[in-house]
C-alpha cells in the first residue's frame, strides 16, 4: 500500500497494482508530468497518501510501454521542458476495468472487516 515514506515496503504486487490504478485515474483528468501526478495525488488525499517517487517513474514508463499511456514532451507554465503523460483509449478501458476490480476487492475486504464473528 502507498504509505508514508519511511514505512517498510509492503507487498510489491499489491502496491504496483494499486499504484497503476492511481496513476491511470489521476491522468484521466488530463495530461500531467510525473511530479504533477505526485502533487495531484497528495493534494487530493490531503497528504495522506504519499507516492513513493522512486516507484513512480518505472510505473509510468511501464504503463506507457503497455500502451495505456502516451508520453510527449511539452512545456510547463514556467516554460520548462517536461514529459507529459496522457491516457490513451486503451488506458481508459483499462482504468474502467481496474476500477471495477478494485471496488469488488475493497468491498470484499470491507465485508470481512465489518462482519462480526457471530455468524
Amino acid at each position, binding site marked *: 500500500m502507498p504509505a508514508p*515514506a519511511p514505512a517498510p515496503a509492503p507487498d510489491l504486487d499489491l502496491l504496483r497494482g494499486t499504484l497503476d490504478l492511481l496513476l491511470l485515474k489521476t491522468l484521466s483528468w*488530463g*495530461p500531467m*508530468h*510525473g*511530479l504533477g501526478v505526485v502533487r495531484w495525488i497528495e493534494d487530493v488525499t490531503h497528504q495522506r497518501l504519499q507516492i*513513493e*517517487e*522512486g516507484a513512480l*517513474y*518505472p510505473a509510468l*514508463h*511501464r504503463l*506507457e*510501454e503497455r500502451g495505456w499511456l*502516451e*508520453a*510527449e*514532451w*511539452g*512545456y*510547463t507554465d514556467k516554460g*520548462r*521542458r*517536461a*514529459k*507529459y503523460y496522457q491516457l490513451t483509449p486503451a488506458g481508459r478501458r483499462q482504468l474502467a476495468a481496474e476500477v471495477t476490480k478494485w471496488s469488488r476487492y475493497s468491498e470484499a475486504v470491507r465485508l470481512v472487516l465489518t462482519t462480526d464473528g457471530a455468524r
Partner: protein
Amino acid sequence: MSARWEGLRRVFRLPLGRRAVKDEVGAELRFHLEERIEELVASGLPRAEAEREARTRFGDLPRIGAEVERIDLRMVRRRSVAESFEALARDARYALRALRKSPGFTAIAILTLGLGIGANTAIFSAVNRVLLRPLDVPGLDRLFVVQQNAPGLKLMGGQLTPGQAEEFAARAEPFEVFAGVSGTSFNLTGAGEPERLGAAQTMGRFFELFSLTPAVGRFYHDEDSRNGNTRVAVLSNGFWHSWAGGDPAVVGRSIELNGQSYRVIGVLPASFRYRRSAQVFVPLEITPRMRQQGPWMITALGRLKPGITPEQLTARLDRVTAEWQADPQKAAPPELKWFLSGKSLISVQAGELQPILRVLMAAVALVLLIACANVANLQLVRAASRERELAVRAAMGAGKWPIMRQLIVENALIAAAGGGLGVGLGAVALRALHGMDPTQLPALNDLRLDPRVLAFAVGVTLLSVVLFGVAPTLRVARTNLHGVLREASRGPSGGPGKHRLLRLSVMGQVAVSLMLLLGAGLLIRSLARLLATDPGFKTSRVLTFRVTLPAGIFAQEAQKTAFFEQLTARLAAIPGVELAGAISDLPFGEGRNSSPFRIEGKPVAPGEPERHADMRFVQGDYFRTMGIPLLRGRSFGRDDRRGSPRVAVIDASLARQYFVSEDPVGQTVNQGPSATIVGVVGAVKHGDLGEPDKPTIYYPYGQAPWYSGLYLTLRTSLAPELVVARARAAVAELDPMLPLYEIRSMQDRVDQSLGARRLAMLVLTGFAALALLLALLGVYGVLSYSTSRRTHELGIRLALGAVPKDMIRMVLGNGLALAGAGIVVGLAGFLAAARLLSTILYGVTAHDPATIAAGAGLLAISAAVAAYLPARRAARVDPVRALREE
C-alpha cells in the same frame, strides 16, 4: 495547454538510440528533482537541505534511472519491430494491388523467372550430384585414384594390375587408407533362374576407405584373407532386399557364385553409392599367375593423409614411376612413355559427363541471366509508365525510401512467386532428366532436389531480386520527380539517353541468346555428323547378349569351344534368326583388349610408334551377322579349329596402315602365337562413333578359347526383342544354370553411346529456344514501349509530311540496330567461351562459319519480326489524335 503540444513528436517517433533514451530519461528525472527542490526552497528550506530532502524522497536515483531506461529501450525496440512489420504488410498489400492491376506483366515476370530458376535448379541438382557430390562420403575430396598411363598406346587413366596394386600398397605413404577394387560379375545359381550378378572384388581396406557402418553383420578385413577366409561376401543393400527380403538373418547364409559357395557376413548401408552395379563384394584372390601378367583390372584408390596435398601425391607417384622404370623386370618400353598419376575420385566418377555438364551449367547461368534481364526490362518499362504515379506520390510527401521500398516489395513478391514456380518446374525437369538417364551413370540414377540445391535456388531468387529490383528502382529514385510531373502533364516523349539501361539490357539478352543458339546449333550439327557416321556394321535387327561359363565347370578349352559352337548353331536355328555369331569384345560392349603385334618380315622402323591392335576372338557367323563386309580373302570357317594352322583376319584400318601397296592375305602377324592373315574385313567403331578407326585383328575362337565369356550376336528377321525368350531357352537346353545378361539390341548400344551428347543437345536446344523467345519478348517490349512513348513525336513527324513507310523504317531500324549490337557482342562472347564446347563437339569446330551465320541470321530475322509489330503501330499513328492527346 495546447501551446505545449506544438511541434511535439509522436511517441513512436522516439529516437531509437540507447543514448537518446538515456538523455530523455535523464531530462525527465532531472526535471522532477529540480522542480521539487524549487518547491522546497519556496516553502522556506535552505537550498542545500532542499536538495538533500528531494533526493531522499526520490530514493535511489541511478537504480531508478537505469530501470526506466531499460523499460524504454525495450519499448522502443518492440515498437520499431512492430512498426516495420506494419509497414511491410502495408507495402505488401499495396504491391499486391499494383500487381493485380497489371496481370500481364505479373504473369510474364513470374513465368520468366520460374523458367529460369527451374532450369537452374534442375541442372544444378544434376551437377551437384555428378560433379560436386557424386557419393555421400565424408571427406570425399580426399579420395584419390592411382592410374597408369601409356600415352604411346593412347591409354590414359588406366587401372593397375594386381601385382602393381600390391606393390604400390607397400609404398602408399601419402594415403592413410589404401585399397583396390575390381569390377566383375558372377553367375548366381541356387534357387530360381540363374542370374548374372554384378560384383566387386576388393583388396586392402576397401570398406574403411568410405567410413562405412554395416547395415547388418560386419565387413571382411585383411585378416579374413590371411586366415584363408576368402569365401566371404558382403551384400549391397539393394541386393540384400531383392535376394533375402531384407532379412537380418542373411548373415551366415551361403550364396552360390560361379558354382562356389560364399558365406554372407554383412550388408552395406543403403547410402553407399560407389560401384552401384556391384551386388556382392568379395575379397580378391590374387593368384601367382595374375600377379605376373595380370590385366589392368584394379582401381587403386586411397584416402590422403591429413595435410598431404594432391601435388605431394603426384610427386610421390613420379618417384614410384621412376623406381619401377629403373627395375629392368618391370620397365615398360620407353616409347610407351608409361607413368603413374593420381586423380580425384570425384572427377573419375563424373567421367565423360563432366564437360557436358559444364556446358549445361554455363548455359543455365545464361538463361537465368536472360530471365533476370527480361524481368528487369519489364520492370523498367513499367516503372517508366508509372513515373507519373510515383511522382504524384512523391509530391504528396512520400519520401524516396518508402517509394523504393514499395518497389522492392513488389519485386520480392514476384521473386517469391517465380522462385516457388521455379522449384516446382525444377522438380518436374529433374524427373524428366532422370527418365532420360543417358549413360546409366550411377550418379544420375538417384537425382533429387536436395536441400543444398533448394538453398541455391533461394539464393538465385534473392540475387534476381537485387538484380532486377534495384536497377529500375535506382532509376526512379534518380528521376527528377518535378520534371516527370511537368513532363507527364504535357504528354511525354522519352529522351534518347533516358532508356539506355533498357536498351543495354535488351542488347545483352540478344547477345546471350546468340551464344546459346550457337552452342545448340553446334551440338545439333555434331550429333547429326555422328549419326551419319557409319559404325562399320549394321545396327538394325541385331540382338546381342552375353554368356559366361564359370571357370570351375568348363575348365577345358575344348569344352568351351564345343559349348559356343553348339550354342551358335542352336541360336541360328531359332525361327526368326537368320545368322548367329559370337565375339569376345563386342563393339559398344563393355571391354576391349588391345596388345602389341609384329608383322613377320616387316620390322618396326626406327622412330615408328609401337604396333598395337585390338584383339578379338570370333565364333560362328559373326561378320555376316554384324554386316561387316569381307573385303579380301576369306572369313573363318569350320576348319579353322584347334590343331589346324593358326589364321587371322585383319580389318581395313590395319591393312591401310601397314600393308599400303601389298596384299596382306598370306602375310603373318604375331600377337602372341603367330597367325597367317586369310582375309580383310571392314573397320568398325569400337565404342564411340566419334573415335578414329583402331587397327584390329580377329582370331577364330576355336584356336584360342581364352575367354570364358562371349557376346552372342543374332541377326533377326523379326524385332530383336521377340527372339529373347527363344534364345534363353536355347542356352538353358545346353546348361540350365547359365544366365544371359546384357541383353540389348545393337541399335540400343550405339544409341546409348550417344546418350550424353543427345541429352546435352536436347537441353541446350531447349535453353536456346527459351532464350530466343525471351530475347524477342525483350525486343518487342522495348520497341513497343518506346513507340508508345513517342506517339507525340511521331504525330508531329507525320503532320510535317513523313509517310508511314518512314515510320516503319525508323522503328524497324531501331530494332535491328539493337539486335545487331547484341549479335556482335554475343559473337565475341561466344568465341571467347567456345573452348568449353570444343571438347564435346564432333566433326565441326567451335568457329564453324555456317552455324554462326545461321544463328546470327535467325536472330536477326526474329528480331525484325519482333520489331515489325511496334513499327506497324507507329505507322498507324493518327497525327491529329496524337497531337490532341497532349
